[in-house]
């Protein structure tokens, strides 16, 4: 850096844009600190080498949306052995003690490979951070080391048959009883509940009163607890990832209350920032994009229009990665960028769909979920999973409301 050209600044009314939801443009121009860059580089190389070995040994087949559908506890444990599950959990709880940017590097590579990461995904992404932020010592000791070992998997207990986007309207209710709470209600769209070990149940523990967000709490419920019944729901692919979970007077001891009774809404919305801003919100169809490029390369002839469509996808990918990465960096510094997360999910899920349509145009094929040909199979997976992208974790409509509310605040 050389001589600064800047004289004394002149205050101006236009200097701080009032209605911009963004940090200043200059804030985004900080280079990655050298130590972090070096650590990320090492991690990236290690993960790539690991994935190449796994693929070479035939231990997984790349799939679209594998963070939802690729359930492989052995794979999760192998990742955990290398320290890539629970990376952001402090060492005293058995984790890697690393930062969110480093986790971002690892998850991006796993998603790019279409690796089967579904088993540990939710526990690693949002359960562990919530436990760390809100959980008491007992639940931290009970769950965090097991999550880090890739041995304890979680599901999400938010949506209900009558509460989708309108999450605050949940009807599952917990009433005080001797030594804890009795939970009664139904959760739905609970991905992986039939194979996970536990979930956080968002439920009503008090009256809503004037504030509809009041009186909500999160309870930690093991999925094998007496009174829990799990009914699988088949997806468009015919596979069962979703479930309906019926809670029939399930006993939850006091120590399994997450955070504070009545603080459920605050806790759950802080979970949403990590849930929405990760690379899985734009990389669900990346394995299809890779297969598409390989197929185009095999045919060897492309006009400028085709190349342009391909180039547009990669340009978008670069920008989405950058957006998502910068949110990870901001969360690492203690921010809770819920609006940015909503924005990124809106853009990212639109991209995931765009990849599918581009593939159909550039390399027409009849999609077949049972095909031996990887491209035809990936295309089928992508088409059938596409409607979910813009629904799960907050519909596009809800995300836009969140952004608009922030703009107009």
């Amino acid at each position: 850096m050389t001589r600064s050209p800047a004289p004394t600044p002149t205050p101006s009314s236009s200097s701080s844009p009032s209605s911009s939801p963004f940090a200043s443009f200059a804030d985004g121009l900080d280079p990655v600190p050298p130590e972090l860059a070096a650590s990320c580089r090492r991690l990236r190389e290690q993960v790539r080498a690991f994935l190449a070995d796994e693929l070479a040994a035939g231990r997984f087949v790349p799939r679209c949306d594998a963070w939802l559908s690729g359930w492989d506890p052995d794979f999760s444990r192998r990742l955990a052995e290398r320290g890539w599950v629970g990376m952001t959990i402090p060492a005293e709880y058995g984790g890697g003690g690393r930062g969110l940017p480093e986790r971002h590097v690892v998850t991006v590579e796993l998603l790019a490979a279409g690796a089967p990461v579904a088993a540990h995904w939710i526990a690693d992404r949002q359960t562990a951070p919530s436990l760390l932020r809100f959980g008491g010592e007992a639940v931290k000791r009970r769950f965090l080391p097991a999550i880090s070992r890739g041995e304890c998997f979680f599901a999400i207990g938010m949506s209900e048959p009558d509460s989708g986007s309108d999450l605050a309207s949940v009807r599952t209710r917990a009433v005080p009883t001797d030594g804890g709470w009795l939970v009664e209600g139904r959760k739905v769209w609970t991905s992986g509940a039939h194979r996970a070990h536990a979930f956080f149940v968002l439920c009503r523990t008090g009256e809503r009163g004037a504030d509809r967000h009041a009186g909500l709490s999160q309870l930690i419920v093991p999925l094998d607890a007496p009174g829990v019944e799990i009914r699988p729901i088949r997806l468009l692919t015919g596979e069962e990832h979703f479930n309906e979970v019926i809670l029939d007077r399930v006993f939850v001891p006091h120590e399994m209350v997450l955070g504070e009774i009545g603080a459920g809404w605050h806790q759950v919305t802080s979970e949403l920032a990590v849930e929405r801003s990760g690379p899985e919100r734009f990389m669900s169809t990346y394995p299809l994009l890779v297969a598409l490029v390989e197929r185009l390369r095999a045919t060897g002839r492309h006009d400028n229009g085709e190349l342009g469509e391909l180039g547009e996808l990669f340009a978008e990918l670069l920008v989405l990665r950058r957006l998502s990465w910068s949110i990870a960096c901001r969360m690492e510094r203690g921010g809770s960028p819920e609006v940015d997360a909503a924005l990124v999910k809106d853009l990212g899920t639109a991209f995931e769909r765009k990849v599918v349509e581009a593939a159909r145009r550039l390399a027409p094929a009849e999609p077949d979920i049972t095909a031996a040909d990887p491209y035809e199979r990936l295309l089928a997976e992508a088409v059938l999973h596409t409607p979910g992208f813009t629904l799960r974790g907050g519909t596009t409509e809800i995300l836009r409301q969140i952004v608009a509310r922030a703009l107009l605040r």
Partner: protein
Amino acid sequence: MDELTLIAETVRGILGRVPTDEDAAGWSPSAWTELERAGLTRVGVPEEIGGSGGDPAQTAVVLHAAGYAAAPLPLTEATLLAGRLLARAGIRLPDGPLSAGAGGAAVPAGDGWALSGSVRRVPWGGVAGHVAVLARAEPGPVVALVPARGLPVTPGRNLAGEPRDTLDLSGVRLGGDAAAPVPPDTHESWRLCGALGRVLLMAGAAERTLEMCVRYTRERTQFGRPLARFQAVQHHLARIAAETAALRAAAQAAVLAVAVPDSEPGAGGPGGRAWASVAAAKVRAGRAAGEIAALAHQVHGALGVTWEHGLRRGTTRLWAWRDEFGSETEWAAAIGARVARTGPGALWAALTDDRLPELQEVET
């Protein structure tokens, strides 16, 4: 306040204080004078040739602020383009309004150079004191610092009314200290720097446009309530914000990619990380610009399409800048060709690696 923020505030301060409305010639001489006095028209240009020094991030915040203010000044030209050309040629930066263009031809003549041909669509070419010209020559290109006053000019304008003038170079004779050969990749560097400059200006203009949309939809009442209360309008605002965020991120990623020490933006040619980042940024910015302008006009209704309303200062610039230094179609095809040639893995590696300024050629 850190240095970048200080620079941004200073530019905003000056452009907020000095009238930035175009005069009849399509520019604001007083704004230029103020910025030049503060050293901001030569930011990012090496001190050895009379620049203010500084890295690409400093230039970036100046251009972003200029785009936000719709400043009618050749700032990309003076800093990223002329500044870099002259640095490559080892020619001292002149005082006064400076622009840049690529075109014409140069041949040695005595101790100096003789120019011929013309250079098209030079931003503010008709009012600039000097124009740094990247001219064809044998065996490689030559950079010439041409005194522009008195040159025959064919005026042109971009969609925002910014001058894009064609200058006739025939008969121009320059001494040996006013022109010099430059490396053969200078054309590539020129194009990348120009694209980066337009991306930064677009990022600023997009932010201003978003703010105007928010303000207008709050103030304008229909059916007894502000437009901002209608969900359909709110979703337009959210879309504009999302595209603005994407444009910003594209610009920031490109700046960081060219900020790798000792890496000229053109270094390594197509495939370098700087190349990939700038190309991707121009593609994404161009697409965002179109979306933002269309939606901004939609929420402003008929008022926004009038000359009197300030909205056009952002939207017409977004339309103009997306087509300068290569539209998204051209850059996207170049990226696509790269992906088709090397496979997705190579580009992916380039985009995710924060270390390598260059993408290693992986021909398969």
